[in-house]
């Protein structure tokens, strides 16, 4: 009889325990209801892309030496470099350059290896079109600079979590100009360099902040 009662009490205890766990879970869910939605309402609010964001690739026609390194390092040999050997100046002369961003995987290897830094990544990611052939950007299209999120009057820019000031958890509640937690690379450089040479770097960091 005692054994049976023991079993019953144990069973009851286990049931109570599980009920308590469910209650804890409900408390967590309920707690989430009073938090602010983290939704970024896209066309009206936009996240500021991070510093290392690899968006659409920018191309400067005049810097290109048609070396085709970008084609070699590309995983799928995507960039199309159309050049002609100019006998008069004994140099390759670029005629057309294009990358199809419908196929590009945005690895930015081309940017990494470009010897003249004529390629660079931008923070543009809004590449939707009605026709996929429109994504085949030529040198003119690639030469355009994207709108900065912070400069668009129609858009409320919101910072990503990692760029918020210390102690802040919500991008919505913080101004996007408030200084972020920790130091920016420019500030670190300014601090580590001797005082005499700091004038120019200070200016640089100011520029960076702006």
């Amino acid at each position, binding site marked *: 009889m005692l054994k049976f009662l023991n079993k019953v009490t144990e069973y009851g205890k286990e049931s109570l325990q599980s009920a308590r766990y469910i209650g804890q*879970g409900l408390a967590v869910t309920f707690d*989430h*209801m009073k938090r602010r*939605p983290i*939704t970024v*309402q896209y066309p009206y609010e936009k996240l500021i892309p991070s510093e290392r964001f690899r968006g659409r690739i920018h191309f400067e026609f005049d810097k290109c030496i048609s070396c085709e390194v970008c084609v070699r390092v590309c995983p799928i040999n995507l960039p199309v470099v159309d050049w002609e050997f100019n006998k008069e100046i004994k140099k390759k002369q670029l005629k057309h350059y294009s990358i199809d961003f419908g196929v590009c995987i945005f690895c930015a290897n081309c940017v990494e290896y470009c010897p003249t830094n004529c390629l660079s990544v931008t923070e543009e990611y809004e590449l939707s079109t009605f026709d996929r052939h429109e994504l085949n950007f030529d040198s003119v299209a690639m030469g355009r600079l994207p709108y900065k999120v912070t400069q668009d009057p129609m858009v409320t820019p919101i910072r990503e979590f990692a760029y918020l000031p210390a102690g802040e958890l919500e991008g919505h509640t913080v101004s996007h100009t408030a200084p972020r937690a920790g130091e920016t690379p420019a500030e670190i450089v300014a601090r580590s360099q001797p005082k005499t040479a700091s004038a120019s770097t200070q200016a640089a960091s100011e520029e960076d902040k702006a």
Partner: protein
Amino acid sequence: MNPGIDLQQRFIETLMDLGLTPGVAKTIWLPIPMLLMIIGATVGVLVSVWLERKISAAAQQRIGPEFIGPLGILAPVADGIKLVFKEDVVPAKTDPWLFTLGPILVVIPVFFSYLIVPFGQNLLITDLGIGIFFWIALSSIAPIGLLMAGYSSNNKYSLIGGLRAAAQSISYELPLALAVLAVVMMSNSLSTLDIVHQQTGYGLLGWNVWRQPIGFLLFWIAALAECERLPFDLPEAEEELVAGYQTEYAGMKFALFYLGSYVNLVLSSLMVAVLYFGGWDLPVPTGLIASWMHVDPNNAIFELTTAGLGLVMTLLKAYFFLFLAILVRWTVPRVRIDQLLNFGWKFLLPVGLVNLLLTAGLKLSFPFAFGG
């Protein structure tokens, strides 16, 4: 107990004053409460769908529907209109008759059950002698419709979903009925009106939930399982069965399933409110309020206000449980089919029997508190 306001009598008398015979007046009255109830149930569904979407969003720190009407309140209407205008696809090699009959059989019993839901002293369609038993009996028709839908879809996921739904609703009907039986035992009547009357008089303290805490939990769990809400939504477990018995449905037939499930949820919440939380009873007894405000309890305006407040109370209580159901949906993961059946048969059923026995014993020993 004061009889309150008799709408039917008033309406018929008004019509007779206009020069109609009593027979005609009654005939005009007959369809009105039913129509009102169907409209009310549908609006209740729209509200609950909106709440579901908004609360789900809040629980996940999202915003939810926002631009379709103020606060996205028209989103369920837009859903409904979309579903009505969608093409009614009947897949190849299905059984067209059973395929059409399935959703109808699921929806009709649920709407019928609204016959016995009291929103106030006289705000119910019929005070059936079998009351709450009518609801339990009607809810057992739905599995037939689900099996029909599952079988006729000619799809193995649908078939398994239908079979699971049927198994689930038969096994959770028993604990549900046992929990209801304990309440019925205390109020000595199956009628929903009598069940509420038995709880009125002491305000908050008189509600059945204090006398039947185990029964309440049992009822709520079983009701969630009957409605196929999330911890128990195996019949439409999307990871395993696509959408269960609804897989092949589109357009209006799918809308019927959707409507049926939400009407059922609202109905179950209403039933919890009626059975365990005093229905239209206010948390403070009306007699006490009247004495505080120095008003005669039989004053017409006071009566009208309390009746209106009673309606609001019923809905508030019901929607509180709807809210709880939505919260549970985002808290508890889905159980497995064997866990579900084990839980129903090996835990809820014995607990329900013990609860019934306890209630009977308490009723014999404390007849004043447990409705001797």
